[in-house]
């Protein structure tokens, strides 16, 4: 590293939300050196949450979702080119086009991609979609405009549920297939999940839980139907694969860093650790691809596919990249996300899957307004609001202070008789959809288990 942290060369791999906000923070905090941003998509940074909401509803065009800039970055953008490898000793990023980018400090912000349908020939059928990129959403919106006879959504996580909701709002027939017992349970547990199942059904979704899609059928290259594990078959002309996300870490396979399918492990300051658990000081990580230890959740490594985390972590990482010693800050923000589906605003704070119990502290499913509070071993660890966002910060405070669970029946709109019940968090391996909040254990790297370094 050059002596002056505000100088030298910084490379950011990943040109989406985290990469952009990191670049802006670097400049805002005085970084005056060379800044290069690499992105595998050909577009400038754009906002993904609207893709499964406004865009599928036809209220906004996919290509309009470009993010506003907070400030100029004066960066060199290398878009439409993938990073293929990292030479940590030589401090260079190797691009797929053969170019080598030297750096003094590196930020990894490669995010995730949609988990593809496992059968490539079926995935290639016209009518089979994923929703991750601008192109994905634009093409799917176009296809929904054309009025398909029935849409099959495979996976009932947040993305799958939002897609199903958009389809119903457009008046389209939709079937949702989920291997787990209910929608959203990967993130919210079974108790809230069973409410979500009601929500789907009351909006006319043909929800099929406990089944998997065993095959997609096509004719002349076009999707015509699907077969389910219960022996039933569906005639569909659109199938949306919403199996969750895959972290973009393959390019780091030979880097010696603790990078794998669960993400890239880092310390509380966003510094990446290597495969021995030793922290580096020139490689940082932020956004969906990162795993970071969180004190509120027993220092397990958390991996969050959340907009807010991408922004917050990018800011901390950028700050730490150009700070020394004690000027560095920890990334401690409480996980939070939102979803909009079936006309309801669902927001979450904390980690609902880090729980053993849940109680409805305010409102009720019948009112379609509620606050569900989650607890683990007697303290509050998460809260989910449905159309009650103004209460959320109260529960965030309870989480941050480790307040006792259950929170007491004193909210003005507490419905008497609501008692804590098991939160019923499933093993994610039994679900079609991937959780967007993943507790990924205490080990920075799975290789540590077998390597036994040093003796």
């Amino acid at each position: 590293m050059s002596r002056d942290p505000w100088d030298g060369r910084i490379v950011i791999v990943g040109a989406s939300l985290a990469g952009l906000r990191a670049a802006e923070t670097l400049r805002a905090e005085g970084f005056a050196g060379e800044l290069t941003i690499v992105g595998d998509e050909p577009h400038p940074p754009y906002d993904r949450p609207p893709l499964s909401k406004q865009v599928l509803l036809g209220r906004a065009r996919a290509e309009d979702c470009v993010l506003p800039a907070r400030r100029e970055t004066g960066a060199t953008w290398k878009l439409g080119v993938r990073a293929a490898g990292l030479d940590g000793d030589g401090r260079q990023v190797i691009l797929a086009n053969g170019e080598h980018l030297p750096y003094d400090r590196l930020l990894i912000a490669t995010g995730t991609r949609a988990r593809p349908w496992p059968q490539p020939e079926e995935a290639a059928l016209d009518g089979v979609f994923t929703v991750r990129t601008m192109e994905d959403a634009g093409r799917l919106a176009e296809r929904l405009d054309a009025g398909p006879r029935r849409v099959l959504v495979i996976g009932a996580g947040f993305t799958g549920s939002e897609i199903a909701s958009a389809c119903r709002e457009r008046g389209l027939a939709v079937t949702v297939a989920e291997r787990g017992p209910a929608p959203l349970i990967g993130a919210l547990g079974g108790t809230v999940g069973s409410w979500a199942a009601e929500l789907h059904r009351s909006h006319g979704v043909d929800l099929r839980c406990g089944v998997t899609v065993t095959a997609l059928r096509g004719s002349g290259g076009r999707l015509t139907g699907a077969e389910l594990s219960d022996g039933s078959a569906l005639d569909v002309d659109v199938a949306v694969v919403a199996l969750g996300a895959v972290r973009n870490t393959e390019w780091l396979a030979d880097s010696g860093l603790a990078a794998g399918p669960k993400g890239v492990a880092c310390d509380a300051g966003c510094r990446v650790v290597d495969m021995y658990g030793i922290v580096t000081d020139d490689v940082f990580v932020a956004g969906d691809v990162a795993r970071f230890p969180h004190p509120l959740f027993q220092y397990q490594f958390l991996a969050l596919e959340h907009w807010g985390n991408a922004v917050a972590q990018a800011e901390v990482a950028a700050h730490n990249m150009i700070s020394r010693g004690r000027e560095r800050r920890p990334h401690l923000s409480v996980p939070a996300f939102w979803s909009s589906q079936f006309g309801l605003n669902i927001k979450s704070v904390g980690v609902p899957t880090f729980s053993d119990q849940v109680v409805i502290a305010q409102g009720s499913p019948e009112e379609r307004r509620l606050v569900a509070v989650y607890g683990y071993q007697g303290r509050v660890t998460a809260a989910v609001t449905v159309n009650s966002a103004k209460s959320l910060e109260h529960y965030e405070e309870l989480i941050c202070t480790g307040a006792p669970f259950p929170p007491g029946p004193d909210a003005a709109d507490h419905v008497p008789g609501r008692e804590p019940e098991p939160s019923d968090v499933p093993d994610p391996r039994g679900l079609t959809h991937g959780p967007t909040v993943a507790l990924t254990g205490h080990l920075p790297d799975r290789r540590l288990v077998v390597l036994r370094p040093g003796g």
Partner: protein
Amino acid sequence: MSPETLFRRITDYANRADPYPLYAELREHGVTRQEDGRYLVGTYYEINALLHDPRVSSDLRNRTAPDPEFQPPEGGLPSFIGLDDPEHHRLRGLAMRQFGPPHTPGRVDALRDDIARIAGELADRLRGKDRLDLVDDFAFPLPVTVICDLLGVPEEDVQQMHLWADTAIKSLDFAPGEDPGPRRRASQEARVAMGAYLGELAAKRRGHPTGDMLSGLVNDDGPDGRLTEVELMVTTVLLLIAGHETTVNLITNGMLTLLRHPEELERLRAHPELMPSAVEELLRYEPPVQFLPQRTPLTDIEVGGVTVPKGVPLILVLASGNRDPLRFPDADRFDPTREDNQHFGFGSGIHNCFGAPLARIETQIALTTLLHGLDTPRLLEDPPPYRTSPVLRGSRHLPLAQAADGVQAGR
């Protein structure tokens, strides 16, 4: 002086013109119990926590002992600002259906031209007057005309509405030592009379809608049904009262503040695009609702290291939170371009001001119109005479002088 007397001193009329030193004293003491058992909170983060705390009630019926100053309307139903969820949510939602999103998103935006026209007409009448009272001649008639128009009150009854509203808010006056009985009774009578009038008007609109809110309230059923007759009266009375008294003060306090900061006034004249941000700053710096007097904890609540017991009067001093230096840098400075201005000018949480967007647009237009319509205005009295209420704080009159010949002074 003892922090236990802060509420007495804040409500003392002698301190109406400048309560801010008292608020600073309050913030220094944190959450303070008053001599009469009230709890006062004046620091930003603590107020914010309580405004979002579902265990804090707005319903006075949850008080352990009745408040001598504040009582729910006798025999009547509280309006939604005096209720908790889910009832508050239902009633507010039914009213919102006719006022804003999601059902009527464009209603307030569509009033911009009307507001500008009314403001222009009022300003025209001020032209050439060497002396004027900004309150009676401008700040009062503008919002009352707008809210009556919006609700559907015919023009000939606007003056009557105004008299009722003025009497009705007297219940928010605090005059320590004085028997609050008579003004509370007068306030109650005014509310009843107003409710009866609006109920009758609503009945006429039933089946004969005229495009106003009242017509909507009696003719348009949403998924949550409609207001009962009593709910309709209580709700429309609330909208009418809240819909203009506070805006009058916002406009008046705004003009007063600008006249006290002539360099900022000039800047806004030259850069009208700064007006939206200036209005937000006014809402922070001189908020029309200074404190919320009717909150009550439903259980013992710990805030700022103090346990506020269940059932006591809990007073959130919004205007003090707005000046908290821990939240706002240089908090006592009026800065129309202030960023990150999350003020409590309209409260926060589920009871955030229903009419906020209307008040914003009215004040932006009013001040812009005045800055261009008045000719070198100056204050004739500073401080001006204040109304009695420490809650809805504002000047009763704002006597101004302007250049008499009606020719804009060269600047």
